[in-house]
């Protein structure tokens, strides 16, 4: 039997799926059919592990991307994954491969989750590249669905037309199924999600773990934060301690690191405190 390829898709597409194609008989794979025509049996995700919860016989975890979260369930048959999750710090960047699962409380209502086979820690850069790859493939799928518009909803015919238009096999197959089986596909919503995810990568440079580890860089980063926040509100043209802290924490610094950096900046005279809890560059 051929191994199932792990699909790349943002949580938004994964969680919007309401069609589950159950494999009949032994060793016939089941698929979650997404509205964009990804046939998900296996999936690969890079994201931020935000929460881990111990269950009776395993772990539940949340992995987030810019469009939402993936629900992760790891049971007794994945002891290595469960072990990794039990000691994983949050938030942290993780990469995982797993099988798509569904819970169907009633007809047409599908809750999709992932049962991980393998999980490891990774870096921000890899997560960013994963987002980009997902967007690339989602754009390709949206394009294929657009090409279907107006065609009669006959799966075989739509598929062969797409193949004739030179879409790769895996794209043509999924797009034909999604187009024929979903009543309506809100392409604009997905395009919007892709845009958000890509623009997210351009948001103001956050302070990364890597840059902090470099000696002396920390002070500079905090100084940048002060500069960016200066002049918001009345605060003597300075930046509020709480705002500085919040921003720095988001960037992955610890509270004590920020405090130390501010101390050093004050000592060297590059920053002063015009009012209690307000900091300004000299």
């Amino acid at each position, binding site marked *: 039997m*051929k191994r199932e390829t792990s699909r790349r898709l943002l949580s938004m597409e994964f969680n919007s799926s309401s069609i589950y194609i159950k494999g009949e008989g032994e060793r016939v794979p089941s698929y979650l059919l997404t509205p964009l025509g990804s046939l998900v049996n296996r999936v690969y995700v890079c994201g931020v592990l935000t929460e881990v919860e111990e269950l009776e016989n395993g772990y539940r975890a949340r992995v987030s991307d810019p469009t939402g979260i993936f629900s992760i369930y790891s049971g007794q048959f994945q002891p290595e994954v469960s072990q990794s999750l039990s000691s994983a710090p949050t938030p942290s960047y993780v990469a995982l491969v797993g099988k798509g699962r569904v819970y169907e409380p009633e007809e047409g209502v599908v809750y999709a989750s992932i049962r991980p*086979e393998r999980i490891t820690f990774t870096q921000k850069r890899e997560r960013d590249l994963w987002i980009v790859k997902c967007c690339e493939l989602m754009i390709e799928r949206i394009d294929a669905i657009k090409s279907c518009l107006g065609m009669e909803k006959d799966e075989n015919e739509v598929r062969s037309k797409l193949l004739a238009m030179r879409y790769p096999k895996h794209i043509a197959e999924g797009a034909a199924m999604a187009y024929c089986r979903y009543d309506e596909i809100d392409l604009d919503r997905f395009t919007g999600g892709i845009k958000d995810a890509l623009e997210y990568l351009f948001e103001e440079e956050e302070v990364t773990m890597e840059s902090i580890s470099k000696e002396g860089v920390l002070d500079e980063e905090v100084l940048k934060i002060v500069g960016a926040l200066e002049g918001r509100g009345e605060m003597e043209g300075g930046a509020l301690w709480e705002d500085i802290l919040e921003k720095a924490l988001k960037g992955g610094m610890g509270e004590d690191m920020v405090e130390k950096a501010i101390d050093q900046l004050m000592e060297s005279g590059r920053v002063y405190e015009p009012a209690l809890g307000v900091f300004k560059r000299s």
Partner: protein
Amino acid sequence: MKEADDSSDSNELEKYLSMGIPLEEAKRAISSKSEEMTRLSNIGPERAGEVVNLECKILTINEREVNLGDEPKKAYYGFLVDDTGSLPYTSWRDIPYEKGNSVVIKKGLVREWKGKAEIVINRQSVLLKSDREFGSLQKKKERKKIADVRDIGWVTVTGKILSAERREKNDKKFIRGVIGDETGRMPFTSWVDFGFKEGDTVEMSGMVRSWLGLLSLSIGEESEVKESQEGVEAKRLKLSIGELEDRGGGFEVEVNGELLEIQKGSGLIVRCPICRRAVKGNNCTIHGEVDGVWDLRIKGVLDDGTGNLSMIIGRGLCEELLGKTLEEFKDDAKNAMDPAIVSREMEEKLLLRRYEVIGDTRSDEFGLRMMVKIIKPAEDKDPKKIAGGLLEGIR
């Protein structure tokens, strides 16, 4: 020779059908009566079961013994060409002619073999000598870029000779090598010494055939090889794994993806010193009790979201990837008293990471299999750069 006449054909067909003969059988029966000559390029796998008449040149004659039932039977096989194309053939009877002779084949049977058409010459067939020349074939040979060579048949490519090794087997001398252009590479075997050497840029024509599941160019007496003035930069075919699946594999192709699984049979293994198979407890299934040889390998799954392949990474590449030698791994296993410690280290260091991989890829019922020649961590890309391009596209 009578030309095809549609109206009389359809009348004939109606006659058969009105007599209650099934359509397929009626077509076969009519085609076997026909005197019409069929051109090779008009014969595809969809015509399997039809009987055809051909006028063509026997390009090659090879012999092989087939065991059907009790006694071995001789079969001949090779290629037929006419002005329009070429097809492989199998003959179950002696061919009283030599390669290069032109013949008329009456009542040859078309059959499908692995999705392609083939001509079968059997007892019903008639072989006659023909005087017709098929000399113009050389000019008709299709020029192709190497990446576009997807099927067996005659082809002309222009590329750089990347390797050319002289060998000898059963007193037969030949040259085995690799030719490459800017779209990809392919192996070739030359049975004639045209005098080219590594580094030369040549235009060569030959027969594409399947060699160990990969396409290879066979250069023989019918071939033409000449120096080319084209500036060719030889590159590897780089593609997504999904595209590679659609192609069914390829020689020295480059793909990019995540290592998503390290399978059983990876890590420290013991091989039979005779057959190189992995053995358990120094017991080879073929050679019995043996003095096993330690080795290192990874059987992994590479996946890029469009497709996946299973790949075998040998000892040298494993040592390079992990920065440790076989001897060091053996010590680790000895100290831990557990050989599985090696595959666990592989998992920890390599799993769920991106790699660039180059290798020979074949496909079977389990999908693509690659013998890895080069593997390295994937080149770092700038996500913002790609994201910027994508945003441009959807704005």
